[in-house]
């Protein structure tokens, strides 16, 4: 998992130049938001939190992480261009609840928390939401947005999932015992 300074470095790199997931002509373009700046939907503070949050969930490994592929920019476009007012309000509420919970757990700004503490607290929160011991409305939905956004990018789809545009054949029975 990346150190926080590497995350921020990644943010700057990924958003400084390439920073745009350009679709083919005639289709919408997702433009990343510069670090420290608000998005079209998110505030600057929300962008910072989402970048940190998403990077802890999907970090850079041998393949790109959430920050590298600009998940926060993807979601900013999603909320701006796809969501209706009801979804936007619901999403903003969920983001606020998640952020408040994590801030509370680290005793300050989660975005500024150290690597070990951030991982520890988010791991504990995630586990308690998924085992049902804690209710945090919208957590799973936001995590779903992050994951789906990541795997909808070229980095997530091709480099991580090995997605193939034209399989060319159907094999209904691929034994992956050796890889498990």
């Amino acid at each position: 998992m990346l150190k926080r300074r590497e995350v921020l470095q990644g943010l700057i790199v990924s958003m400084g130049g390439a920073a745009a997931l350009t679709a083919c002509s005639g289709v919408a373009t997702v433009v990343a938001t510069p670090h420290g700046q608000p998005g079209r939907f998110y505030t600057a503070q929300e962008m910072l939190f989402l970048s940190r949050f998403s990077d802890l969930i999907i970090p850079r490994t041998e393949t790109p992480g959430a920050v590298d592929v600009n998940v926060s920019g993807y979601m900013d476009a999603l909320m701006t261009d796809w969501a209706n007012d009801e979804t936007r309000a619901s999403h903003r509420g969920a983001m606020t609840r998640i952020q408040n919970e994590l801030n509370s757990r680290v005793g300050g700004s989660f975005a500024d928390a150290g690597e070990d503490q951030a991982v520890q607290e988010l791991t504990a929160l995630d586990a308690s939401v998924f085992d049902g011991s804690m209710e945090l409305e919208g957590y799973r939905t936001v995590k779903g947005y992050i994951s789906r956004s990541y795997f909808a990018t070229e980095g997530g789809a091709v480099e991580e999932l090995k997605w193939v545009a034209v399989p060319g054949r159907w094999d209904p029975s691929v034994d992956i015992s050796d890889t498990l």
Partner: protein
Amino acid sequence: MADFDAIVVGSGMSGGMSAKELTERGLKVLVLERGPEIIPERDYVDELAPWETPNFDSVPQDEIEKHYPKQYGGVAYAIKESNKDFWVKDDEHPYEEAEGTSYDWLRGYHTAGRSIMWSRQTYRLSDYDFEANKNDGIGVDWPIRYDDIKPWYEKVETFAGIAGSAEGLPQLPDSVFQPAFELTDAEKELKSKVETNFPGRNVIPARIAHITEVTDEQRSLGRTNCQARNRCHFGCTFKAYFSSLNATLPAAERTGNLTMVHNAIVQSVEYDAAANRVTGVRVVDAETNEKKLYTAKVIFLNASAIASAMILLQSKSETFPNGLANGSDQVGRNLMDHVSGAGAAGFMSGFDSMKVFGRRPSGGIYIPRYANITENDKPFIRGFGFQGGASPVGNSGGQIPGIGRAYKEAHKQPGPWRVSIGAFGEQLPDPDNRVTLHASKRDRWGNPLALFNVRYGDNEYKMLEEAGKDAVAMLEAAGCSNITSTPISLTKPGNRIHEMGSARMGRDPATSVLNGRAQAHEVPNLFITDGSFMTSAACQNPSLTYLAFSARAADYAVGLMNEGVI
């Protein structure tokens, strides 16, 4: 002198086949399409990668509410941002529903109609179906039997390309097949358990209109084998699945006998009472509102079961005050669809080390009808087939615990194997289930709006209740865990997009619109070969039957023309 030998109204599934068969027999044919032109090289969007379609390729929520409430509500799985133009905007193409009823009229107005967006399940009818009305005393008897249509099934299947397996089932005759998409291991397990525990029930590969062993004829039309991308609702650059645009219209075009006019909304069919012949059609241009008359010696209506009925109802004359060829008062009646809303899903263990490669298009398995075939203890008549499949669920939705590397890695695992099956049941013909012309409301071209009044009957409710129980029982027999089966909730009429029966075939002109050749009883040079002609619905997906009857009717019509009869 007529402008054309034949006019085909509609370029979708049946219209494309009518055009192909008529042009290949030397007729000069005009195909009228009410929507704009689709050019595959320009308009297919099947080659877009996930990252080239922002927002998960989802149509914005406000746009759905404004433009696609019916269409999206009916087929959310098929309508995406990149292909939304394949579907009509509900606010631009409204219709009305009788009080207390609801109808899903799901459509695409453009070249090839819904044959671009269909789900490609392809099954023959059998004599169980052609004899059903007679045996049950329901509706009217089909005027033909399986042997009459069998050679035409063979002809259109050979041309189209159907992937499937020979099973020798009397209720579901084998087609001319190309190799099937092989079942997954979990589906094979389901097949074994179901066929062992329920003798007379079969689990077979879904039969789908995809090329898997391309023929020279298909190659000559620029078609090739399915590439297992499952991008079919976006068009197919490989032209591997059958559609009018991928197959029949190019075949018609290469004869040099095809003229195609787009944006031509047919408002009525002209009728010459003295000669007792239809002579042409009146159209309004969808973009310019210009009105025009096209004439021909023979007319094929292939506008869909609803639109063809409406055209007939709009074509009033002194001879036919209730609509053309409607002396029986059956036009617009007996509107049928298939009914779903019962099924089950569960998880199968023992396959965690298995995954699949490629994305299989359309369905995986089909469980042919057994009710009132091999099992005769049912509290309903007719029956249903199940469509479904078993595949690894995967984890791409983010609904698994954990964060970090382990969470990321988990998405590469196939996940648990889930099986699901859903019933497609037969709706009985009922003359009170009908589409009529709204008395006062008009569309922007001045045409009456469709008014639907369709309800399911007791038989459909009883059938689906039993189908739901059967689905759970079969999954239990297969050893599934966590089986879920939602309360029976019948799909809205129209939702299966198999509209049928609005100008039914029959033996008696007093009780039916068409004869066994899909020729109007009352007007010899008028043929209708879309879903309108269906005397009963069977439970099989109907497009293949439309294709076969279109080819047969075209051959018959040309024969009559050559003999000078019409």
